């Protein structure tokens, strides 16, 4: 959980450093840009996904993207973002660089900025949360992975209401890209195991996200940000300190509150 919070903080720090930065090279067409997903030949790529349930989830989410995100896209803040914060691009180490170092793991670096693009600012956290779901922690603790990354990020940059509404859709868009482009590439190179690295777990993550409606996810994210992210946030009349960010009971209570009836139903 601590690494998830640190991960969100790391991309928040990058956002803060790049605030106001621009360069014409980043205003480019880019296959993996969430803001350009509608330019992707979705029908063609989708045909390579062999799981009909996953295909249906991707299709439904794409309709939400068209209906709820694109019409308000001009209102979303933009920035140059790294746009590829997946587990292979995060350097994790202990505090020392000794060969057999011991101690808690920390996030010490981010690498691979070659997908950097000028796009909606919230895409950075959407991408990070999407890949967070694919991490070993995220596969076991879906909600806490999402919450931890969001908490870390929004302690530096708070998302506005519109961004929070778009966030669940954008997370699934990134997962969809991974599944679709991965399936397409695998069809061209069936023996390439690397292509399965993200696309296979992404299918499960898509199904998790699509098991609940967008509004539920948005409410969860709003609650996380409002109750845990702001400096000097107060929950139940107690000032949040860092240790409370890792208190399972807070997240469990929010999950039950937001998803409770749906969880029982599923």
């Amino acid at each position, binding site marked *: 959980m601590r690494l998830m919070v640190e991960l969100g903080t790391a991309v928040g720090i990058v956002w803060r450093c790049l605030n106001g930065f621009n360069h014409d090279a980043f205003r480019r067409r880019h296959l993996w840009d969430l803001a350009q997903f509608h330019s992707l030949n979705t029908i063609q790529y989708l045909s390579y996904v062999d799981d009909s349930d996953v295909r249906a989830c991707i299709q439904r989410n794409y309709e939400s993207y068209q209906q709820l995100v694109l019409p308000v896209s001009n209102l979303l803040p933009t920035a140059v973002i790294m746009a590829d914060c997946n*587990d292979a691009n995060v350097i994790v180490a202990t505090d020392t660089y000794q060969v057999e170092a011991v101690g808690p793991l920390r996030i010490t670096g981010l690498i691979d900025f070659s997908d950097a693009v000028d796009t909606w600012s919230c895409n950075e956290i959407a991408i990070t949360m999407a890949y967070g779901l694919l991490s070993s922690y995220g596969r076991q603790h879906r909600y806490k992975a999402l919450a931890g990354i969001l908490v870390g990020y929004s302690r530096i940059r708070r998302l506005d209401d519109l961004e929070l509404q778009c966030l669940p859709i954008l997370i699934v868009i990134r997962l969809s890209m991974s599944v679709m482009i991965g399936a397409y590439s695998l069809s061209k190179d069936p023996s390439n195991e690397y292509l399965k690295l993200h696309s296979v777990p992404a299918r499960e993550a898509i199904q998790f996200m699509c098991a609940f409606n967008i509004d539920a996810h948005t409410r969860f994210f709003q609650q996380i940000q409002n109750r845990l992210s702001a400096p000097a946030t107060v929950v139940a009349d107690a000032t949040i300190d860092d240790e409370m960010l890792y208190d399972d009971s807070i997240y469990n209570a929010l999950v039950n509150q937001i998803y409770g009836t749906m969880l029982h139903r599923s």
Partner: protein
Amino acid sequence: MQRIESYDDANFYCEAVDTRDGHDQQYRSYLIKCYNAVETCTEGSSNLLHGLGLMLSRINEKITTDLQVPTIVMPHNSNDLSSNYMLMDDCLLSDDSRQQVAVRLFKWIQGYEALFDCLSLMDGWLLTNNLR
């Protein structure tokens, strides 16, 4: 040399053992980014590299925590961002063919001044298999 996937560029987080000063444990960590040499030489990627260089410089200038991001290193104090790579012959691709690739160096551990001295020792670098 690690296997280079042909479909994409790849990041290589590697450790370079430098025993020149007699300290056996004196090893440093670097990030090496390998590009397809043809891609590296296109006009479009040159502009992107320029933007990338400015982007990483900006982060490194502004950052106030110990979080690290790579820095594009200028060879021989050159300001030409398109020249900070060296060509390596016979790199193994995923289809088992071999190809010349451009290796771009990013300074990873801050403050190490002798990075380019190590270029001449490239063959002696111990590229560990710790790409995650």
